[in-house]
Structure formats: structure tokens, C-alpha cells
């Protein structure tokens, strides 16, 4: 541990002693694991895409991870109000840019989610999620406090706007994630059970509608329910990878399946980890996300301030749900969603958005006088 005196009153020391160091360490560990796995997946991905430099993706991963870590640390130094303002700015920016993708986006695999500039492509919708959760948490808290403004209604309008933007891309996976997180936040905000139930019913109806409106959703669900009905190539390979890995894995670099999995370095990095490092790696990654959820919810449980409580819980939910869905897809527990594994999957937008989420969570959970319930 870095030797920093408790009596040191510098900004850095203050940050260091107030931040949740377990959470911070877990995030760091996850980023390191992601980089390590990129060593395995990057050459295979480069080879598949006929890129001459086998470490093309590794260098980029390292670059994004570095920027992500910096963003996370910078955001964690904010106070709740500052965090809220940053979130508001990000929300407005992300909504504007997501809307822009509809007009000038680059189509990748049938969806226009990307904006391209200066050799980098950005998926602005990734940033919608943490920003919306923080703002919605604040609005729900205001509502509960009895503000004159119709805060909850504003929250719903913002949510519907975001979901509309996501569905226009179309990005059904992110919609599911955002809806689940928003619904959970709504529930946590102490809204009546009946409303929560109504929202859940609406989400179910929305899913059913998506099945009939979006052919790719229908095809994915059909293939999940009845594997004979279509191409389950990626899922089959992922399951093989987990099976081949066994308890200890086949060893670093010994994975075969990564050569056949088109999304091995992104959505299916978990399967690559399973094949090369075995069940132990699977349990380690799953466990680390478990630690994130435990620390995040534990802080939310003890926070006294409603906004901070909701924002902390919501951001934790966001990370936890995304990890859960991604791992569940890799293990074929739910239909494929096209969702990255936070901190670990390759991808600049995903990495930065995850870092924003983590940074805001760290900012919310910092120990400040009076914000936590006194431990008995």
C-alpha cells in the first residue's frame, strides 16, 4: 500500500482515504484481466480479420484501458453534485450523438451504432446508460423529497427518449439492459409495488413486441429456444470453449476456439478465458463482479442521502446486470444480446463507458462526513 498519512490533508490524500479502495482495487484487477485476455484474443482476432500486426487489438486495448483508468480516477474525485452535473452533460451529449448516428452513423453488422472520426469509432449509446441512471436517480430522489417539479415524469420522458434512440439503431440488448436498470431504480426509489409491477408488465409486452417487430430479435430468440432452427455458430463455439477449458484450462495461448469465434475479443471474451484458463478463471471473473455488486450495494444500503443512495445502487446494477447478461450469453443461459463484458471486452466505447460508470460509482460511494449511516 502507498504510504499516505491519515493526517495528510492534500487533495490526493483526502481522495485516497475516502474512496472505496476495495471497489477501486476490484476495478483495477478487472482491467488487468481484460488486458491479459487481450493477449490471448488479439492475435486470433487480427488473424481472422487479416490484420498484419498480431497485436493490433492489444495495443488499442491497452490505450483504451489507460484512458479508461484515467477517466475513472478523474470522475471518482468529483463530489455528488459535480458527478450529477457531469452526468447531465454526458446524457445530453450522448443523446445528441446517438441521434446523430441515425443520420450519419456507420453501419456495422446491420445496426448503425457508430460514429467515426479520426480513425476511431465511437458508440455514443454506451454513454447513455450511466448518465441516465445518475440523472434518473437524482430525479427520483427529488420526487421523493417533494419537489414542485414533476421529477419522476421528467425521468420517464428521458428514459423513453433514450430507449427510442436505442431502438431506432436498433440495439435491443442495450434497451433491455437500460430498461431493467431503470426499472430496478424505480423500484429502489420506493415507488409503489403496483407501479413497479405495471412497469414490469410493460417491459414484458415491449419484449414481445420486439420479437415481432425486429427480425433479428425473433431469430435470436428462436435459435435460443430451438437450436435446430438456425445458425447457433457463436454460441456452439463458446460452449465448446468452456467445455474444452475444464477446471484449469488448456493453458495461455492454447485456445483453439478463439480462431473461429468472430466476436472472441469482444462479446465472447469470457469463453476465451474459459478455454485457456479454465473454470477457475470463470469463477474469478464472476466473483470479481460479485465483489463489485456487493461493495456497491453495501454502500447504497448505508448511504443516507437519497440521491447518492439511488445513484450508487443504479450504477452498481448497471455494471452487475451487464456482466450478468454477458456471462449468461456466453454460457447459453439467455439468447445472444451483443453486449460487452465490462472492463474486459475489447472496445473503446465500451471501455470508456464502463470507466465512466465505475468513476461515478466511486464518486457516489466516497466516505464523506454524514453521508453514511452510523455503523452500530
Amino acid at each position, binding site marked *: 500500500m502507498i504510504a499516505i498519512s491519515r493526517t495528510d490533508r492534500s487533495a490526493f490524500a483526502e481522495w485516497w482515504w475516502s474512496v472505496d479502495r476495495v471497489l477501486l482495487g476490484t476495478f483495477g484487477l478487472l482491467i488487468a484481466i481484460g488486458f491479459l485476455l487481450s493477449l490471448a484474443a488479439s492475435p486470433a482476432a487480427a488473424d481472422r480479420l487479416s490484420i498484419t500486426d498480431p497485436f493490433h487489438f492489444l495495443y488499442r486495448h491497452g490505450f483504451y484501458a489507460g484512458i479508461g483508468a484515467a477517466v475513472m480516477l478523474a470522475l471518482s474525485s468529483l463530489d455528488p453534485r459535480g458527478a450529477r452535473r457531469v452526468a447531465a452533460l454526458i446524457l445530453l451529449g450522448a443523446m445528441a450523438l446517438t441521434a446523430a448516428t441515425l443520420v450519419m452513423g456507420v453501419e456495422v453488422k446491420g445496426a448503425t451504432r457508430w460514429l467515426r472520426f479520426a480513425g476511431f469509432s465511437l458508440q455514443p449509446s454506451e454513454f447513455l446508460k450511466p448518465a441516465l441512471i445518475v440523472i434518473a436517480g437524482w430525479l427520483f430522489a427529488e420526487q421523493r*423529497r417533494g419537489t414542485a417539479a414533476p421529477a419522476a415524469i421528467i425521468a420517464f420522458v428521458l428514459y423513453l427518449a433514450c430507449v427510442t434512440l436505442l431502438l431506432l439503431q436498433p440495439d435491443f440488448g442495450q434497451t433491455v439492459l437500460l430498461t431493467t436498470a431503470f426499472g430496478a431504480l424505480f423500484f429502489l426509489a420506493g415507488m409503489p409495488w403496483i407501479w413497479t409491477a405495471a412497469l414490469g408488465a410493460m417491459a414484458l409486452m415491449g419484449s414481445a413486441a420486439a420479437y415481432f417487430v425486429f427480425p433479428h430479435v425473433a431469430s435470436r430468440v428462436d435459435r435460443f429456444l430451438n437450436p435446430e432452427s438456425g445458425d447457433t455458430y457463436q454460441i456452439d463455439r463458446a460452449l465448446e*470453449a468452456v467445455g474444452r477449458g475444464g477446471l484449469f484450462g488448456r493453458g495461455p495461448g492454447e485456445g483453439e476456439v478463439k480462431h473461429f469465434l468472430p466476436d472472441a475479443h469482444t462479446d465472447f471474451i469470457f469463453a476465451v478465458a*474459459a478455454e485457456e484458463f479454465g473454470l477457475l478463471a470463470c469463477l474469478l471473473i464472476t466473483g470479481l463482479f460479485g465483489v463489485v455488486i456487493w461493495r456497491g450495494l453495501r454502500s447504497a444500503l448505508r448511504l443516507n442521502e437519497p440521491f447518492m443512495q439511488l445513484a450508487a445502487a443504479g450504477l452498481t446494477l448497471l455494471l452487475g446486470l451487464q456482466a450478468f447478461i454477458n456471462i449468461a450469453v456466453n454460457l447459453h443461459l439467455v439468447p445472444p444480446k451483443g453486449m460487452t463484458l465490462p472492463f474486459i471486452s475489447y472496445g473503446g466505447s465500451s471501455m470508456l463507458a464502463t470507466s465512466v460508470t465505475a468513476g461515478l460509482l466511486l464518486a457516489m460511494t466516497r466516505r464523506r462526513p454524514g453521508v453514511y449511516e452510523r455503523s452500530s
Partner: protein
Amino acid sequence: MIGGSRVRLLRREDAPAPLTERTAVHTARRVALRDEEKTAIEAGRGRIAAVGLAFALGFVMLGLRAADLALLDKPAQAVAAVAEAESAKRGGRADIVDRNGEILATTLDTHSLYADPRKVWDAGETAKALVTVLPELNEARTAERLRERRAFVWIARNLTPTQRQAVFSLGLPGVGFIREPKRVYPRTRLASHVLGFTDIDGEGSSGLELGLESDLREYGERGRPMPVSIDMRVQFALADELRAAQAEFSALAAAGVVMDVKTGEVLAMASLPDFDPNRPTDSDPDARRNRAASSLYEMGSTFKAFTVAMALEDGVADLESGYDASKPIKVGNHVIHDYHAENRWLTVSEIFTHSSNIGSSKMALEVGADRQRAFLEGLGLLTRPAGELPEIADPLVPQHWGEATTATVSFGHGVAVTPLATASAFASIANGGKYVQPTFKVHPPGRELPEGKRIMSATTSQNVLDLMRQVVTEGTGRKAEAPGYQVAGKTGTAEKPKNGGYSRKDLISSFAAIFPHDEPRYVVLVLLDEPRGTPETFGYATAGWTAAPTAGKVVSRIAPMLGVDRANPDSEPQLIAANTGG
């Protein structure tokens, strides 16, 4: 952000208040609501705990599922992935297997040695060292290559893992390996003409490797081997008997085809001399020629089967009709003789069994050129037959089809066809009168039979079949009998066209066999190019002494493999008598 700085300013002034953003009225209300808010927060805590519990359950489920997949579900999946890995290495080219799944062609990884001459320290030394482990290299030429001013030169292609290891152990700088898939034919010469071979880049360059190129890629992508119609056992028996006959009769070459008469599947196709497709360039180009598919022969008397069928089908003659074969006839500038002239009137069946050129010519002339042409066209003898082999040749058909042509074609001269086309035409006689296209793809059992085009009535085909059986029981084809398998057949001895005429001594002897006679299933065509008589054959090299016994031996060997029941030999003579009587 202007608002932000204002707030920070305020904060410094009233230091202890965390709620500076609010007016006094708000603060007052907040105090009043504190208790209420506290209850709300407590309720919120309960809900957070519930969410935490749900997450805990979900993550435990993930862990259990991962453990289940990793530890319990293993073997089948591992195998699938390895198979996938292997087929991907093959660059998508499927193995070729025979109809019973035996491997005929596969792809192995080999290691090709290259050098970067710029990085080689001493070309002479390096070449010297390489020759110690790769003796087939020429030291001087290798050294020369290593001195070239280039970044890449090939040293040796397709090395084995052992050779690769030996080169590795030399520790030479500037040399390296590239993994190259190489097509391998584990049965070496067997069916070499049918399979063909690939070029150094793994693209088909002849045979089915070329003809089935896209199918092989398609099967390869699905990771499955591609079955072809060849039956390796039948192929071996055919090739083995042909080789024995070629040696016994000192023939220049030999060719053979075994075909299923109902489906058109080619079960075996052999051509001698043959070659090793693993090293195609080491062989004589003449040996690489598939005589069964790409060489054209005037088949001779075997064509009389078609002439008789045509006459019966057209109704110009029945089995008892008689023709005057007492003296040679003159058609145009040709005079047509019989070799074993009977010099009398002959019935249609006698014309066939005694192989009378005069009688055949008269029958054909009676039918006429146009209808003869149409009939042979229907039997696939005037166009290139179907089949996936790219080597299959177009027949040689005379441009002007006059009376002389009609007469000579009736006994198999003037039209040159491939053995494959001849076998297909005989299949039409055997299967009740329909022309079925030959194919090298497997006809899945149980699938509907191909809809052949009817060329002759079932009665006509039965009559010709009976005549062919007679050829074996009492005619020129007696040596083709395979006891119990009721061979029906027709001999064909043609003089080879040489120096603008025909050579008396150099023959094409062929035999077309159909078996079993009572329920025909297979055609066997055997052809010997320039066989020589032996003391055992009393110097005869004609089909009855050379091709017929070979075909008989092939039938006796392949019939048990193909599950053809051996009939009770006693019942046969009556059957023949009954048929000829009718």
C-alpha cells in the same frame, strides 16, 4: 457552469451547510420531512437488500452453469471443436470418401521451408547443412537460391514434422517454415484417374478434385467429408483384374467401368497405365489420361446390341426375321464382309450371336439413317455423356451420315465413343429401356430413382438382354460366365485405325457385361488396347479370348461384395429356352 461557480462561492461563505443550494423555505420543509424521509430510506434499504439477494442468486447460477459446462459436459464438445479446427486448417476442402465412407483423399498439414536470403549468414554453409537432413536437395542449387537478392525463396515444400524438426535442430538463421496443407491420397494409385489431383495451392486441377471443386468447398465448410459413388472394393477388384489381363495379354492399355444400371452411379472406373496422384508430376502424361472417360474408341461388335435393339424397337424385324448373309454387300465404296461367314440366311438372334456385320448392316439400312441417329442419340452415344469428371470427352461423330455410315456404325465403326458412354448405353438395355445419366455423386438409398428418358420398350430391352445372355451361354462370350451370376454380354473386337486404314493385328477388344440376367443391376465394361494372343488363347487376341474372361473374373469378384444373390445354376437353361422361344 456559471451556476456552478456561484454555488461554490456560496458554499465557502456558509461553511457548514451541505444544503446551500436551497432556500430557507426548502430547508425548513426538509427538516419537517426528515422523519418521513428516514422511513422512505429504510424502505429503500429493504429493497436494495432484495436486489442484492437476486444478484447473489443469479451469480451463483452463473457459477454452477460454468462448472457444469466445464466439468461435466466435456467430451463430445471437445471432439467437435478439434474436428472443426482440423477442417478449418484444410482451407475448407473436404475429404473425399467412397460410398462406404472409406477415405480416398484427405488433406494433411505439411511444413514448407523458406529462406530470407538477406538474413542467411553463409549461403554455402547453410546449403551444406540443409542437405545433411534433406538429402533430396541439390546443394549447389540451394546455395544459389540462398544468394538471391530477395526477401523470400522456397527451399523445400511439404516437409514432414520429422524433417521440420531436423531442420530446426540445425539452428540456421534466416530460414523458416510455413504451414501448408497438402492433399494426400492414401490409396495411391487406386482410382487415381477418377480422383485426379490438386495443384500446389490446393485447387483441383483434374478428375473429381476439379469437377467437384465447389461441392468439396461446400462440404468442407460444413466440416463433412464428401462421399462419391465409387466403391473402393469394386474399384480394387476391377483395377486388379485389368492389371492382370494387361500383363497376361501384353496390352498397351486397359480401361474398365462398373455402373449401377438404375441410378447411373459409377461404382468403379479404372484406366491403365495409372499414376500416383500424390506425385502427379513424376508420372508420364500418357499414364494420367483417363482412358475410360476421355479416350475415344470404335467399339466394334458391342454396337450390334444397339442395332438389334433399334431394329426390334422400330418393328422392322422380330427375333425370327431372316436376313441374307450369304454374300458380302457393297454399300457406297465399302464392301462389308463377315469374319466367320456363315454364308446363309441368318435370323436376328443368329446375327447377334454370330456377330454378323452383313446382317447388322442390312438391319440398320432397313431402319434408315435418321432413325439410327436418333436412337444412338437417345442412348447418349452421339453427345458428351453427363458426369462430374471434367475429362469426359465428346464422341467423334461423322459429319455426313450416309448409307455407308449407317452400315458401318451398325457394327461399331465410324463412331468413336468413350467406354463410359458405352457402359451408360448398355445400362439402358439393362434397366428396362431408360437412359440414365452416369454420375459420380452418391444416390442416397431410398431416394427416388432418377427419371430416365425412355429409349426402348421393356420388351425390346428384355429381348436384347436375352440375346446377350445367349452370347454368354452359347456364343462368343462363353468365357465371361461367372457361375451363378447369369452374365449377359456382348463381345467387341475392333481393328484399330492406323495409317489411314485399319490394322488387322492391332485390336481393341472389349466386353460389355450385364448381371444378373434375371434382374439386372450392374454393367461391367472391360476394354483392352492392343492385346496379344497367348498360347492359352491359341494366339487369338479377340474379345472372346481376352476381354470376356476378364469381365467374367470381375463379375465373380464384385458380385458378392455388391450383395448379388447367386442363383441356382439348374434353373438357368430353362429360362433361356423359354425366352428365346418367346
